[in-house]
């Protein structure tokens, strides 16, 4: 039972990162119809920038988060205007492939700038742990969970009650109708890319404090956001949060009970099963057939 609780606790912390990543991922997909393969690279960029800001320059963590969020968000917006905008109307998969291209470029850039050596965990957050009986919960995990929750809540309020949030939902619902109402889809797309990248960037900074090692494998976290987003439903904000937690917890449980080599398989296997039972995830919308 202790093991189970311990694994679950760690899984919730991990899952909250996945949720944050999946949320940005889903947001971009929901408004722009782009499945962003480079999302993990955005996160990785956030983590590496955190290395520079927090470890090399020793800046304040709040300042660092804001600065990194801004940089990564700016990159997202720039990518939209520079690359994604001309691609509107291209087949689904070509757009996915463009994001793969972006992912490759970001990777190569990071390798050239930071070199191949693995870096250790960032220790900018309070270290130590909370002992509840036999259960050990590091402060980092708790902070991670709280920051993710805050990010999700802020995002939710933004999405549901601001004008631009409303416009984003309108564009996601019906592009032509929204455009006819005077919403500029292009601006909305850019904002979505910005916010999506921002979520990934913040998640990257937080994850840099959670993970034991920062290297080019971090993009794999972005890959894990796929099953998280899929389980929830690719176009559902609530689903991303739930999916993230499910993937995080099940992954840690599987690795703890069956061994580390089952980790990928469980995350993706679970997604596979969910897709077979509910082809559009738990909260996703089913498209209608029209003739």
């Amino acid at each position, binding site marked *: 039972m202790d093991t189970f609780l311990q694994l679950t606790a760690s899984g919730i912390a991990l899952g909250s990162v996945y949720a944050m990543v999946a949320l940005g991922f889903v947001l971009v997909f929901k408004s722009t119809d782009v499945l962003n393969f480079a999302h993990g690279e955005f996160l990785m960029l956030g983590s590496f920038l955190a290395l520079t800001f927090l470890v090399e320059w020793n800046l304040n963590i709040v300042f660092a988060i804001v600065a990194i969020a801004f940089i990564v968000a700016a990159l997202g917006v720039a990518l939209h205007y520079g*690359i994604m905008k001309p691609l509107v109307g291209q087949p689904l998969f070509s757009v996915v492939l463009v994001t793969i291209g972006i992912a490759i470029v970001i990777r190569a850039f990071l390798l050239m700038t930071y070199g191949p050596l693995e870096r250790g965990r960032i220790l900018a957050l309070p270290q130590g742990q909370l002992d509840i009986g036999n259960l050990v919960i590091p402060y980092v995990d708790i902070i991670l969970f709280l920051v993710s929750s805050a990010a999700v809540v802020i995002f939710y309020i933004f999405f549901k009650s601001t004008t631009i949030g409303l416009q984003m939902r309108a564009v996601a619902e019906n592009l032509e109708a929204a455009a006819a109402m005077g919403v500029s889809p292009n601006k909305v797309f850019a904002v979505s890319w910005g916010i999506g990248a921002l979520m990934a960037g913040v998640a990257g900074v937080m994850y840099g404090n959670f993970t034991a090692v920062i290297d080019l494998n971090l993009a794999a976290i972005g890959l894990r956001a796929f099953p998280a987003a899929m389980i929830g439903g690719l176009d559902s904000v609530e689903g991303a949060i739930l999916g993230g937690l499910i993937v995080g917890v099940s992954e840690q449980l599987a690795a703890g009970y069956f061994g580390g080599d089952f980790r990928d398989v469980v995350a993706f296997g679970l997604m596979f099963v969910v897709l077979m039972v509910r082809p559009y995830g738990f909260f996703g919308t089913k498209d209608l057939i029209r003739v």
Partner: protein
Amino acid sequence: MSGKYITDYREDLRLIKTTPQRIVLVVGVLATIAIPFILQIDWDPPFDYPWRAWGTALNLALAWAIGAAAFNLLLGYTGQISIAHAAFLIVGSMTGAILGQGAFGLGWSLWVILPIAAVVGAVIGVLVGLPALRVRGLYLFMATLAVHFGAILLFRKYQLATTKFNAITYPAPSIPSWLHWLPFINPDEAGEFLIKGDFRWFWVIMPITSLCIIYMVNVLRTREGRAFVAVRDNDVAAALLGINVARTKLRAFAASSAMVTVSGVLLAYFITARSDESWSIEIILDVAIMTVVGGFSTIRGGVLGAFFFFMAPLWLEWIRGWGFIDSVDWIKKNGANIDVMIFGLAIIVVLVFKPEGLAGLWADIKRYFKQWPFKY
């Protein structure tokens, strides 16, 4: 136009119809036969141009061309976004290991294994295709990613159960002794004619690749191929033409997977060993690079892409070796990284500016020469 009228449906169905096409074909065949001999020439090309490496690159590109073209068959023609392709390379290497002459194999010859692998690939392809009946588009994409991770785990478990910690090795295949009377077949002292080295492998890989490509082109220009496109463009309308959408998707999966599996067997035997570390998620990216740059949704695109993938690094490295470039320190230090970046940028540039890829470029050039000297 050639100015020749086609008077017969049978003639119209031929792939090669006009005299220019015939000339291109003859030249192509002659060149194909000549290339391995030319690459055998022992000389010192200018600027340290890599010469023999082209033989290896050619074989790799040919073997991968099957896989990349088959990927396009499924993705481009049938519209099924499946990236379980690396999984079928794994299936191919496992089939080769289980049936082949390696330490734990059944000892069958490669020539028997190849057709069996196609069947095995087709059957497993149908199984992998089943999710496609349930989910589509990007959801299918993700479901097939799950297949990829499952296949890697399976391979690792198989390897640990047989060759333990060592990679699975594939001994060089030999030509059966009753074929030794053929010209150019000179058995070694042990009375065997082993397929080793780029020159001999070329004569194995090239015909198999040609057959597979011709097979795919033929499938695509007959009933099932048209049904693939119909399912891709409008599956409801396709069903209303009597096309069983589910069965057609599964057939596409079967045909494509069979081809990739054959490519997996060939590559395993050509590379001579496979281990669990041979399969990374990057393989999916490799196939993506090939198909995008080559141009997806055409068989030709897959082939051109595979060639680009293996030839371009040779060129890039050769260019980097030129004196004045070699003297730039930053380039020297980041050489291979620059290659990677160029590949990434190539994907983006191609998709933004020339979505049809190299195949589209090829068509443009052809059109230009057809209309030359009249420009519009």
